[in-house]
């Protein structure tokens, strides 16, 4: 998804709430918006979620989107199950798979015991669980979280953290705002500071300066003024084929310098793909043996994802590889 010179104001004579925002959200990316109250974070989030149309500029390539508002008032006359059914159908999920998906999403948030309670009779926390569950209904695409953790119990907060990591693993992207600086700090995030409606990239600390190839590329294009029409269209083309391009980049990276953490796995279930995961530089599969080369920063979460892929998966070995070019 790309935001190009996006601005928003709520009337011709009113001031701009956000202005000239250009940034890319690439597949597999976690983006954190920071800033004080009233700087335009929520407005920007809503534009990214497709809830609000910008007054100027445009948003292109927005995938299927789930949005979690900060507060979901207990006002709708539906049970949690019925409400999730409606939202699921809007995403094109129907029938048995819809029922299963509802159970999976609500169950994950620990909300199955009140699945048939009307939203009107729910507490703030229960409502928030339903709000998170409705955003998780589509398996892929973009997740936009506006202080979504507010009011959730400890288990549900952890479940949401886990859902975010899983979404990133599947190649989806997540954009979030939260006033707790430790929120999702275990995941690698691109940080953007929103100040008086303008957005600036916060460079990560020295330890993360290398980053993944993806984040380096995002940093190169986002925020900077893009020159020339031809350059623009070339970037757009690259963006559209981003999965393919990323794969190619990984293959090149592994040929050039096979440095990183090498993980060997046995018992890999057939048909499960693992080549779109964040931080994975190369994948080599031989029957049920899988060899994955991972960026050092991403090894923990990739390992977790690998182990969760099937019941027979077990780790044969983990070793640090030095490609020699460093």
């Amino acid at each position, binding site marked *: 998804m790309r935001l190009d010179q996006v601005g928003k104001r709520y009337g011709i004579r009113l001031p701009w709430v956000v202005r000239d925002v250009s940034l890319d959200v690439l597949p597999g990316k976690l983006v954190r918006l920071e800033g004080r109250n009233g700087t335009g974070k929520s407005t920007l989030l809503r534009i990214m979620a497709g809830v609000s149309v910008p007054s100027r500029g445009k948003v292109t390539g927005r995938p299927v989107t*789930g949005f979690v508002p900060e507060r979901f008032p207990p006002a709708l006359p539906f049970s949690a199950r019925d409400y999730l059914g*409606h939202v699921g159908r*809007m995403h094109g999920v129907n029938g048995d798979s819809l029922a299963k998906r509802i159970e999976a999403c609500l169950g994950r948030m620990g909300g199955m015991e009140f699945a048939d309670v009307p939203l009107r009779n729910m507490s703030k926390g229960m409502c928030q669980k339903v709000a998170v569950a409705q955003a998780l209904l589509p398996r892929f695409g973009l997740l936009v979280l506006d202080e979504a953790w507010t009011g959730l119990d400890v288990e549900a907060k952890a479940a949401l953290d886990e859902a975010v990591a899983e979404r990133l693993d599947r190649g989806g992207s997540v954009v979030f705002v939260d006033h707790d600086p430790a929120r999702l700090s275990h995941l690698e995030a691109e940080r953007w500071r929103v100040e008086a409606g303008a957005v600036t990239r916060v460079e990560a600390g020295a330890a993360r300066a290398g980053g993944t190839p993806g984040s380096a590329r995002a940093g190169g294009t986002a925020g900077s003024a893009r020159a020339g029409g031809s350059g623009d269209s070339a970037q757009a083309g690259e963006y559209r084929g981003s999965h393919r391009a990323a794969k190619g980049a990984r293959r090149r990276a592994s040929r050039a310098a096979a440095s990183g953490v090498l993980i060997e796995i046995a018992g890999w279930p057939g048909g499960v793909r693992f080549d779109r995961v964040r931080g994975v530089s190369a994948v080599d599969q031989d029957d049920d043996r899988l060899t994955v080369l991972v960026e050092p920063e991403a090894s923990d979460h990739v390992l977790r994802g690998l182990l969760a892929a099937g019941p027979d998966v077990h780790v044969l070995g983990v070793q640090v590889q030095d490609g020699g070019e460093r």
Partner: protein
Amino acid sequence: MIALSRYQLSLMLRSHRWIPPAVLFILGVVLLGGTSGPAVAHGAGLAPGLSWSALMLVPATAWLTRSALTAEPAAARACVAAAGGPRRAQLAALVAALLAGVVFGVAGVVWELTRIGVLRTQGTNAIRVGATLAVVGTGIGAALICLLVGSAIGALFNPPIILPPAAAMLGTTAAVVFALAWNGSPANAAVRSAGYGTKATSWPPGLPALAAVGLLAVAWTVSALVAARRSG
């Protein structure tokens, strides 16, 4: 769009927000309509009766539309807009109100037919099938035009176009009165040509329907565009 409309219809039904406009419609049709037509003999009152129930659809549909447009808290609308798009979410609410208005309209036609009965020849009391169908057809046509005008008024004078409740309700009421009383309104012309009152309308046939469709298209488009701009 179907899923969105289904959600909005379900919301309308379960929130019981259809009840106040339904009460208005029933009171209008049953109490006020009973005295509107001439003597109820040989079905002579059918045309005035049908046109009166069509006329009552304008305030009822405008109110239904207001109900649908104010049913969701902003946060719930935001979730739906992320899933289906803010313009389509708004259109779905308008569609739901219009469909509820159709139910009112059908109930009105059925009520008038049971209350007044079909047209019959004086003396022999034989049913005049052709004449009855013509009257019912014109009545249904007038009802459809009134539905569209009511929906357009509801869309133009309520959130997100007019936000303060007092201004929205006063505006809606004034627009409904205007649409019914003013000679230049398609609803007025349709109701007159369907047999209400004594003065015939000067509108050529077909023009009220065209005007109503145009009005609805403009009102719904503006409402959807403003909804997408104002939200957030």
